[in-house]
C-alpha cells in the first residue's frame, strides 16, 4: 500500500478535486439543460435555469421510442458482454497457461484486428451475413438482434483476450498446481481457482465490453431496423431535419445513464480483491 506523506496527500487532494470538476462539469450542464425549456437552452447560457421545467423528461418518451431503444441496448449489450467474457476467459486461460504452436500467431492476428477502421469492413461484413442467411435459408444474422450481438461480442474480444491473458499471467501457477494436486481438471481449475482470483480483471473487462457495445454507432446504424434500434443511434433522432431538441437529448441521456451509473456503484465493490497471502499455502 502506498503510504502517506505530505506531498502525496497534496497530490491526492488536488488531483481528486481536478478530476471531480473535470468529470462533473458536463454532467452539470446536462442536468441544468434538461430542466430548461428548449428556447432557454438555445439562448444565452445561465448557470441555473431561469424557468425550471420537467417537460423534457416527459417529452423524451414520445418524441422517440426511448423505452424501446433502451431495452434493445440493454439486451444487446448484456448478452454480448456475457458471451464475450465467456469466450475471452476460455481463450485467455488457454493463452496464459499453455504453450502451443499458433499461439503467438493467434495473439498477433487478434491484435491486428484493432487496427482496422470500421468503415473498411462494414460492408463486407454485411455481405457475409446476408450470404450466410441466404445459404441457410433463414434470417439469422441480417438485421437481427443475433447478428448485432455476434458483431458486438467479436469486436470486444481482442481487448478482452489480451487484458485477461495479462491479468491471468499475474496469477501464479502455484494456484493452478495446488488445484490439480487436489484432482481438478482444466475447467475445474479455471472455474474454481483462477476465475475467483482474477475477479477484478474479469469485472473490469466485462464493464469494458458492455460500455463498448453501448456506444457503438457505425455498425448499429446499419444492422438494426426500427424495432431493434439501439440507444446510441436512437439518441440522434432527437434531431429532426430542422430542429434539435437539446433539452430532450440531455434529459434522455441522464435517464439512460442513471441505471448504468447505479450498476457501476454496485459493481465497483467487486473491483477490489487481493491476492491474499493465505490462498497459496
Amino acid at each position, binding site marked *: 500500500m502506498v503510504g502517506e506523506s505530505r506531498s502525496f496527500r497534496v497530490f491526492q487532494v488536488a488531483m481528486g478535486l481536478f478530476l471531480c470538476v473535470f468529470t462533473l462539469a458536463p454532467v452539470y450542464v446536462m442536468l441544468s439543460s434538461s430542466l430548461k425549456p*428548449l*428556447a432557454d437552452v*438555445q*439562448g444565452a447560457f445561465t448557470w441555473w435555469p431561469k424557468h425550471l421545467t420537467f417537460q423534457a423528461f416527459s417529452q423524451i418518451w*414520445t*418524441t*422517440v*421510442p426511448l423505452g424501446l431503444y433502451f431495452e434493445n441496448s440493454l439486451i444487446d449489450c448484456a448478452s454480448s458482454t456475457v458471451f464475450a467474457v465467456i469466450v475471452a476467459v476460455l481463450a485467455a486461460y488457454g493463452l496464459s497457461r499453455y504453450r502451443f504452436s*499458433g499461439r503467438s*500467431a*493467434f495473439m*498477433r*492476428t487478434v491484435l491486428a484486428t484493432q487496427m482496422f477502421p470500421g468503415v473498411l469492413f462494414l*460492408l*463486407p461484413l*454485411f*455481405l*457475409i451475413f*446476408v*450470404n450466410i442467411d*441466404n*445459404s441457410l435459408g433463414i434470417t439469422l444474422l*441480417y*438485421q437481427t438482434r443475433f447478428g448485432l450481438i455476434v458483431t458486438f461480442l467479436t469486436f470486444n474480444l481482442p481487448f478482452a483476450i489480451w487484458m485477461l491473458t495479462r491479468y491471468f499471467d499475474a496469477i501464479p501457477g502455484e494456484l493452478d498446481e495446488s488445484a490439480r494436486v487436489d484432482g481438478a481438471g482444466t475447467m475445474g481449475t479455471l472455474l474454481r481457482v483462477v476465475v475467483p482470483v482474477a475477479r477484478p480483471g474479469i469485472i473490469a473487462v466485462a464493464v469494458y465490453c458492455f460500455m463498448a457495445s453501448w456506444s457503438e454507432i*457505425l455498425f448499429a*446504424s*446499419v444492422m438494426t*431496423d*426500427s424495432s431493434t434500434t439501439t440507444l446510441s*443511434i436512437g439518441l*440522434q*433522432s*432527437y*434531431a*429532426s*431535419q*430542422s*430542429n*434539435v*431538441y*437539446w433539452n430532450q437529448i440531455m434529459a434522455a441521456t441522464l435517464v439512460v445513464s442513471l441505471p448504468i451509473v447505479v450498476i457501476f456503484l454496485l459493481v465497483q465493490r467487486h473491483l477490489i480483491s487481493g491476492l491474499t497471502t493465505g490462498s497459496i499455502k
Partner: protein
Amino acid sequence: MKLSKLAAAGAMAALAGASLIGCSSSSGSGSGASLAGTTITYWATNQGASLQADKTVLTPELNKFTKETGIKVNLQVIPWATDDTKILAATVSGKGPDVLNFGNTDAWTFGATGALLPWTSSQLSQIGGSGKFIPNVLAAAGQAPYTSLPLYSQAYGLFYNKAMFSKAGLTPPTTWQELVSDAKKLTNASTQSYGMAIQGASVSENMHFAYIFARQNGGSPFNAQNQPTFTTTGNVNGLEQYINLMSSGVINPSDAQDSTGTLQMSQFAHGKAGMMMIQNDAIPALASLGMSTSQYGVVPIPAPSPLPAGGQDLASFVAGTNIAIFKNTPHLDAAIKFVNFMTSAAEQQALDQKYQLLPVLSGASQGFISDPAIAQAFTSILNTKAQPLPLKANVEAYQQTVGSQLVTLIGKAATGSAVSTSAIQSAMQSAQAQMPAT
C-alpha cells in the same frame, strides 16, 4: 510480423465468400392476381418534428391505403443521420425495403447504383403519367427512365423579421446589393444584433449556396462533359458573394460554428438576426421557438443587379424528397400501387398540409402552408426561380468537397482573417482535385 496461416486461410475464405456475391437475387414481379394480404416495407424519411410525429402523420394515411387495396404497409421511419448508410447497405446486400424515400440530392447517386427500379412508360401510366408533376420538380429527379419520382418539395426563401425591418424603415430586398445594405443597417454588434444568420458549419447548406450563387454569377459546378469546374470565375465569385456576408460583419461570427441551424434559428426567432436564408421546413421549427408566421415574411433570395455575364436570377434549387422502388422487390405491383397512392392529389394535399411542405403536383392547391402570403412566395420561387442541382452522379462528392471547403473559409472569415479571391480559388482547386474521377 508476418501474416499467419490464419490470415491466409481468411483470404481464401474471403475469395470464396466474395464469389457468392456474384449471385444476385432475381427480382420477382408480383403476379397480376389480387394483391390483398401482401405486406410491403416502406422506409420513410423524417419529415416531421420527430420520428414519432412522422408515425403519427403517416399511419392514418397508410391505413387508408390498406383499406383501399388490402395491402399492408410496414412503416419504418429512418432518421436522416442513418439514411444514407442504410440505403447503401441495402444496395450492396440486395436486401432492402420495397419502397423508400431519400433526399433528391442523392437521387442520382442512388439511381446510378442500379438498385432502384427504372420506371417504364407503362408503369408510369399506372400512376397517372410523369406529366402530373411540376416540370421543374420532375427535372430534379432526372430524365427518363426515372429511377425515383418527386414526393415532397422544398425551396429556399429569404426570411425577414417584419418588426425589425419596419423599425429600421426597410423593405424586403429585391437585389443582392440591397440585401447587403439592409443587413448592414440592421447590424449592431454591441447589442449582438445582426442583419443575417447562417449555418456556417453545415456542409449541405454551404453547398446549396455555393450552387445558387455560382449560377447567379454565371458559373456552374460541372461543364457539359460533367467534369468539375469549381475554379471558374462564376463559381469563385459566387462563393465570394456568400463569404463576404461573414467578412462584412453582418453575421454573428459564432454562426461559423453552427452546423445544425440551432444558432441561426434561435437568433432569428429572438430578433437577434433580421434575415435568414433557409428552406420552408423552418416554418414549423420557428413555430416551436415561439415565432408565428405573422411575424416574418418570405421573399426570393435576390441576385446581384445587374446580373453578371451568364448569370441567372436563381433564388433556390429544387429541394425535396423523392420516392423510389427497390429493383429487387418481390412485390412490384403492390409497390407501384403504393407510389400511386402517395403521389395522388388527395394524399399530396393531406401530407403537404401536415408537414408544411410544397407540392410536387402541377396545379396543386396552396393550402399547405397556413400563411397565404408565405405559401404564395414559396410557390412562385419553386415554379419560376428554382432549378435542379446538376444532374450528375457526383453531387454528393460535390457537396462534401466544396461544402467542407466553404466551412473552413467561413470559419476564417469569422475569426477576422481576410479571405482573398485567390484563397477561394485554391480552396476550390483542392476540392476539385478530391472529386472522384469519372
